[in-house]
């Protein structure tokens, strides 16, 4: 017992002493690891907690450490279509495909992005909507058409509240402990999401950490969706039986009227 206490104390001292030498970094945790979508789901909020490890005390107090937290939905192939006027009617004309487009993207930070780091770093780390770039299937990224179509993906996703920026959405609880609030909209895509935290010190990128977040339907919604997609034929048969029964019930209930 005493031996164990001594060992623990020794280890604690050792880590504290070594901490001076150790690289600064971050640790993060999520308020929940799973978002469940039931019939009453109208959106929620995810909180990412974290702490800056081995930071320089004076710099922590002076607020020289900055953070960006991104919550990103599963990546997918997206087709963007542009409506064009043909014979007086607006029809879907030119289309462009982009691969690995995040189905949702919500970002929070301690300050506006331009004050956190240089344009080059922000672009490489793909922090903020302006720096998010998608890989076009045809044509290069310098193709002006691709640039226009890519911008429209961001605009459309923003209109549907799937892409969201909240500069200042991260607050410090202590000089090294922080909290990021990220909104999850009602139409959040199903699948594996990733929460990613980036740490900066005086404008320089130091480290990033990530954690997975599962978004899934539960109960009746889950069962119905899975069944409809895996056993479409039998799902159709059930839909027909429900409809026929409803129709029959109506004819019985209202027959006397």
């Amino acid at each position, binding site marked *: 017992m005493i031996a164990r206490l001594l060992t623990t104390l020794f280890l604690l001292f050792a880590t504290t002493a070594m901490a001076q030498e150790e690289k600064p970094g971050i640790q993060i945790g999520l308020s929940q690891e799973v978002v469940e*979508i*039931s*019939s*009453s*789901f*109208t959106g929620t909020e995810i909180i990412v907690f974290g702490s800056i490890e081995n930071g320089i005390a004076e710099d922590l107090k002076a607020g020289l450490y900055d953070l960006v937290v991104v919550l990103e939905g599963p990546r*997918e*192939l*997206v*087709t*963007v*279509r*542009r*409506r064009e*006027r043909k014979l*007086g*009617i*607006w*029809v*879907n004309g030119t*289309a462009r*495909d982009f691969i690995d487009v995040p189905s949702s993207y919500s970002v929070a930070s301690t300050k506006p992005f331009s004050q956190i780091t240089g344009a080059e770093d922000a672009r490489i780390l793909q922090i903020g909507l302006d720096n998010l770039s998608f890989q076009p*299937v045809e044509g290069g990224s310098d193709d002006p058409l691709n640039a226009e*179509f890519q911008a*429209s*993906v961001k*605009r*459309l*996703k923003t*209109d549907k509240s799937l892409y969201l920026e909240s500069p200042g959405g991260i607050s410090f609880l202590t000089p090294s402990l922080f909290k990021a609030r990220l909104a999850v909209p*009602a*139409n959040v895509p*199903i699948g594996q999401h990733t929460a990613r935290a980036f740490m900066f010190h005086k404008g320089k990128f130091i480290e990033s950490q990530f954690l997975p977040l599962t978004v899934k*339907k539960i109960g*009746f*919604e889950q069962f*119905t*969706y899975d069944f*409809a*997609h895996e056993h*479409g*034929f039998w*799902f*159709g*048969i*059930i*839909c*027909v039986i*429900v*409809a*026929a029964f*409803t*129709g*029959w019930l*109506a*004819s019985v209930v*209202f027959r006397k*009227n």
Partner: protein
Amino acid sequence: MLVNLYLPIAEMSVNVLVLFSMGAGVGFLSGMFGVGGGFLMTPLLIFYNIPPAVAVATEANQIVASSFSGALAHLRRAAVDIKLGIMLLVGGIAGSAAGVVIFSALREAGQLDLIISILYVLFLGTIGTLMVIESLGAIRKARKAAASGEEVAPTALPTHRPWIANLPFKMRFERSQLYLSVIPVLVLGFLVGILASIMGVGGGFIMVPAMIYLLRVPTNVVIGTSLFQIMFVTMFTTVAQAATNQTVDIVLAFILMVGGVIGAQFGAHAGQKLKGEQLRALLGLIVLAVCLRMGWDLVTTPDELFSLGTGGH
């Protein structure tokens, strides 16, 4: 109270009261006018931002419920020519299957929403105009007759239909007392089947006039036989859409069904208080209003030129 509901297939949160009211409202009109209502319900669902693919397939499922209760009532009164209904059904199932294939292809090409809108504008525009012209003529005639105190003789149908009478593969339909080639029957069923898959309508608004004017089916069995065929074709369409495109939303369909059957009961009572030609004029105007709204969306410059899809082009 549960007002917002998440639809499992459409994958969106909707207001149950709004959808129920839409079902009841269209049900009221269909009870009043004796029409299926699919051609009004599908555009309304699209106006409510339900994806057109889901709206069309789900509406086919709702029509199963309304046509089933209607067909049962007509079967009890033996007002169905089952043999004719089965021949229409053979054509209808082939048409519906073809329609589901066309539907999938258009969806992949990104042109499904456009084709649905164009078809609606064409059909609603034509039928609405014909209904308004015909009913206004009937109202004028009734007024003139009332003024002169004479009985109005119903317009007699021309008795000959040479091109249809000369077609081969004739078949006897005892209930309708018809000796008729199966070709126009199969073709009519086929065309209506395609409409069921692509537009989410029962097709009664085409089938009933075609049966009366082209096939000369006696009016006492027309509605029952048409409902009999619509019921089975929409059953087939529901299963085919569910198996191929996974676009039947059972929760949405159920809300609409319940609203629809209740609304239809009140509509039927209200309909008895209005004159036939006034009813037809009113329905014609409603049909034209929906047509104009859809047509307007096709020709005006949209606020947003771009749209997103998944799965490539």
